């Protein structure tokens, strides 16, 4: 019972924190630019507001537009059930295969792309075709990073990987782990749609990737798609932080250790959010055809990291 409660707690922490992380990134960017910017809790209000609004669908759209937002939202939420935040007992720890996790995420991307196409507007199709290109370039690098961890911990079960991470994997294999970290950073930028791959703030329809697909979404559908993208971003950051900053974990669970672990997790995520936001500010967006170069760089890093997994 206690393990189930722990799993449920971790699951909800990921869900609850995710709009905050995105809000924090926006706030950081605004502050560095010298403007005040929206409150860090603005994404919560946005979701609440959108939930109350009616859905307007294009008359070109089919049943895909009705089901796709739910799938896009549910997929990352399901994946959140795989991820350990501070305890290896997760909702899916009985079968928490990391390869399954990668491809469940891909299912969300697939339906998001379908949703873009289904609107019948040219921007949706444009966004979908770009998103699929970026996703197919990011996937090999992601899988290579995953394989590195699987090799290092001799398991593809996320909870096992997590347990061995809490040991000394990072310090036992510093070369491989550092390279994997760099590769995962590229993957995170691509999957979360951040600069230099995609610009989440732009109003220019022609340069958008993720935003172009959801340009026609409204009301509850838009809220669901937003939740999907928030949770996805948080999943990647959680993966990042738990693998490379294995702090704040305890073998025994008391109220105090749990509270402290949650606090540490919160700090780690905020730090990562701020780092990514500042990284975005120092770069311009890449040309569309240069994205493959960046992703190739990520892939090569991941490949070297896998080959040298004992270093």
């Amino acid at each position, binding site marked *: 019972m206690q393990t189930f409660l722990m799993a449920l707690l971790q699951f909800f922490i990921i869900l609850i924190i995710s709009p905050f992380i995105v809000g924090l990134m926006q706030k950081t960017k605004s502050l560095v630019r010298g403007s005040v910017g929206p409150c860090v809790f603005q994404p919560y209000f946005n979701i609440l507001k959108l939930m109350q609004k009616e859905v307007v669908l294009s008359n070109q759209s089919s049943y895909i537009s009705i089901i796709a937002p739910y799938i896009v939202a549910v997929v990352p939420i399901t994946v959140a059930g795989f991820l350990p935040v501070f305890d290896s007992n997760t909702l899916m720890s009985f079968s928490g295969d990391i390869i399954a996790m990668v491809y469940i995420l891909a299912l969300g991307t697939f339906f998001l792309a379908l949703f873009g196409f289904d609107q019948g507007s040219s921007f949706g199709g444009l966004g979908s075709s770009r998103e699929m290109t970026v996703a197919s370039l990011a996937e090999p690098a992601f899988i290579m990073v995953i394989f590195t961890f699987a090799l290092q911990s001799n398991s593809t079960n996320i909870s096992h990987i997590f347990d061995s991470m809490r040991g000394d994997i990072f310090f036992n294999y510093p070369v491989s782990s550092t390279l994997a970290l760099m590769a995962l950073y590229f993957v995170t930028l691509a999957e979360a749609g951040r600069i230099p791959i995609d610009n989440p703030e732009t109003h*220019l329809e022609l340069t958008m990737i993720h935003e172009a697909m959801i340009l026609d979404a409204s009301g509850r559908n838009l809220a669901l798609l937003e939740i999907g993208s928030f949770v996805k971003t948080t999943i990647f950051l959680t993966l990042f932080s738990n693998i490379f900053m294995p702090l704040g974990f305890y073998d025994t669970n008391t109220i105090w250790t749990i509270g402290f672990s949650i606090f540490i997790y919160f700090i780690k995520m905020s730090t990562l959010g701020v780092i990514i936001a500042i990284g975005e500010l120092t770069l311009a967006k890449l*040309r*569309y055809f240069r994205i493959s170069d960046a992703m190739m760089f990520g892939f090569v890093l991941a490949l070297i990291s896998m080959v040298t997994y004992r270093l």
Partner: protein
Amino acid sequence: MKEIFDSIHYFCDEFSEDGNFVTIKTKQLKSLSLYLFRDLDCDLSNVVALRAKDGFIIKYLYSYPKKDYFFIVWQNVQDKFESFADDIPALNWFEREIYDLFGLIPLNHPDFRALPLHPENYPIGFHPMQNDEIKDENYGTYEYKDVKSEGVYTVPVGPIHAGVIEPGHFRFAMSGEPILQLEIRHFWKHRGIEKLCEGKEIDKVLKISQKISGDNALSHALSFAMAVEKICGIKVPSFAQYCRVIAAELERISCNLSDFAGVFQDAGYSFGASGITALKEDIMRLMKLLGGNRFFKDFVIIGGISKNIKPYTKEIIAIIKQVNITFDKYKKIMENSSSILERLETTGKIKKQTVKDLSCVGFTASASGRFSDFRKTHPYLIYSKLDFETLVLDEGDVSARVQVKLNDIKNSFKIIKICTNYISQVDKPKLKARYEIKDGEEFGYAQSNRGNIVHFVKIEDNKVVRFKPRDPSFMNWQSIQFAVLGDVMGDFPLINKSLNLSYAGNDL
């Protein structure tokens, strides 16, 4: 010049010279136009149709950049005229505009579709400048030149966009990401300025002229005022001339900074964008301090200026100095950032021949190897006394255009410094000259940040009977169709921003 005049005499029936304006009437219009456009390498600057006693007159204004001369070629027409848009592509839009507004038919026009008056919104046969009557209640349609082929799809963008920007319709023919063809359709905000100004008092037209393109309010007012001053023979006091130059340069800095910020923004570099926007705000506050509003509206009046800016010389010098320092910092950031330069270089190339054919003006032309700056080639106000270096680059890409603009900002800082030194030494500032309105018609011109503005003004009985402004955007818009070829869709906003054309100025 004598040789040129001799060659022109060979074509012409009537020839008159007035200052740097040469007026020519000829029957061999085509050969003379081609001689001016091709052999002398003149730019087409404005085309004006106006009502005459019987029929209409069409005037073509060519500017000769090598010497400070303008050629006005004119002809009488009844209801149709010969089109030579095939040979002088810059005439294409002018001739279509004349048909829409006056109903004069350009014979053998290569692309005879409606331009300013959309056939969906204006009844067939309605030509507002000819007469007001609506003969027909039927509406037409507009045919796009879409590319139809397997694997080519059309992406229509606008006229409503996702951001707060002016309306414009862009139709891309795409094959994957690369752009095969771009067709633009503008004129969604036709306000009928030419019709509105007919028979209005001069002061009212001066006010209207400032609304042609919001950010270039002062430059438009300046070209209108200078046309009127030329007609009435007004000598503007030199103090007022220096103040006008300061105002014009401040406007130029503010527009160029805004472009610079826009390029950062559209390249996805928001840190630089907000920094530069803050600088622009400093300049606009200075403009408010000097002129009473943020766009220098009503600063220029006929015969001089409306406000004395002498008491604020200290503020001008202090703010310009501080803006200059911060500007250099951001310029360095741009020059040292590979990720920004990588976006700008080789993007949106415009060939020199395209610039020549379309008579593009301003930085668009200067960045493609064809120098265009009326401050140097046709100096007005006191620009001939000022010493500044203009930049001509051959690359023709976004990066070249940005560099020309950055150089322009530097020039403006320098010019303002010289002019403030001068006005601070004047003891008794004289703001405006006394004048009487006379009848006549003249061209007035000024260099805005986008290029030269040329206004045609005709006054009869103290009223403006014909006002034909020509904004630089009207000359430059077509170049974007060539700039995007071969580039990818995602780079279009950046190219568009680097050209930064006005939708309102284009559509009168």
